[in-house]
């Protein structure tokens, strides 16, 4: 059966001597794997279209339940500047790693596709500092979309106000709820600015996100909250 769709390459890995297994994010089937026969041969018509972050129109051929073969792949956008900048590649790879570890394959998710494509477009047209902020926003938003975001607005147990985020619990805990509980590690203090930035990151439309200009300090506190949340609660190490 031949299917035509579009996809963003999340990663590729060598299969056997010359073949490649490509992991795509697609709008209609979510995360899927497909394979390409000898794409690195000089005469291959795939060119650079199977490299990570490439957004392309693809044709897949194969029976259900087996990995389909990529029969055609026409580039819509290469995003090659993003993957060729080491820092951006590290950040975007982190996003992809999170995606691959929390989102099951073959589950349609048009919202996720539009979100990721939107973020790539936004990053591609931004400056270096801005791209770093966009990475953090994207990470927060990805976790919020999938229900894995840490809770930063109120106590995760009783709903009261609180200012201490406990990475081990993945939430703010009020003094009452935090007391007398076994919680790994000390809390991180969260202020109003952090909470505002955090909720804007989740709620604002993607096109508006470049308007968020947090201070360096806020950025580093929130980055460390997110990193600790990822490694302690989701088991995704740096």
């Amino acid at each position, binding site marked *: 059966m031949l299917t035509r769709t579009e996809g963003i390459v*999340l990663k590729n890995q060598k299969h*056997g001597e010359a073949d490649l297994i490509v992991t795509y994010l697609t709008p209609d089937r979510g995360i899927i794997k497909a394979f390409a026969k000898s794409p690195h041969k000089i005469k291959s018509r795939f060119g650079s279209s199977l490299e990570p972050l490439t957004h392309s129109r693809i044709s897949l051929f194969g029976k259900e339940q087996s990995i389909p073969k990529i029969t055609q792949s026409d580039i819509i956008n290469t995003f*090659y500047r993003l993957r*060729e900048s*080491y820092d951006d*590649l*590290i950040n975007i*790879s*982190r996003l992809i790693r999170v995606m691959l570890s929390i989102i099951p394959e073959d589950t349609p998710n048009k919202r996720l596709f539009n979100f990721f494509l939107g973020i790539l477009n936004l990053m591609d047209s931004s400056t270096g500092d801005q791209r770093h902020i966009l990475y953090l926003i994207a990470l927060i938003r990805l976790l919020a979309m999938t229900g894995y975001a840490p809770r930063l607005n109120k106590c995760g147990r009783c709903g009261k106000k609180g200012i201490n985020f406990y990475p081990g619990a993945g939430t703010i805990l009020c003094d009452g709820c935090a007391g007398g509980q076994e919680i790994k590690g000390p809390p991180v203090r969260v202020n109003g600015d952090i909470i505002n930035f955090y909720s804007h990151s989740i709620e604002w439309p993607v096109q508006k996100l470049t308007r968020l200009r947090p201070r360096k300090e806020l950025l580093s506190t929130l980055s460390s909250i997110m990193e600790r949340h990822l490694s302690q609660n989701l088991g995704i*190490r740096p």
Partner: protein
Amino acid sequence: MHKGVIENLINELTRLPGIGRKTAQRLAFFIMAMPKEEAISIAEAIRELKERARFCRECFSITEDDLCSICSDPKRDHTRICVVEEPSNLIVIERTGIYRGLYHVLLGALSPVDGITPESLKIRELIERVKRGNISEVIIATNPNTKGEATAQYISEQLKPMGVRITRIAYGLPIGGDIEFADEVTLTKALEGRREL
């Protein structure tokens, strides 16, 4: 015939890259039909490789000795190091016959999405070699793809402060190719890397 032994060989052969169950079966029955000495000599060659081959202590290419034949050759240019991902890449560059310096095999390429970090490769060892001095140029010949490019960038960041000349092999259009069929990234790179005639 004991069903276990042939099944066992088929299973072992499927570990090899590009060998699926069907091919493994074909190979197993072919080996079964071979004269005993020939089959044993294949097995012996594998055993000998695993017992005698190891990584060169300087450049991590494959050798039977402590130092490989390139590292221990006084006629080679010991001030140049060409960095490649895999031992097989070294063999291809050697075949051109135009490079007379030394090599450094990283045994892989950076892939942050798979958790392959600089620590998983022989990058620290490369830096140590350059630190020991007497190196005038490091030529980075990692693959022209995302992983190879990230590796090249990381290495050049690490080596820059040491004042050594760092070069990257050129990108371009394949010889015998046609501009019409080149994709836009390849073409962009080829334009950026143009030279005076």
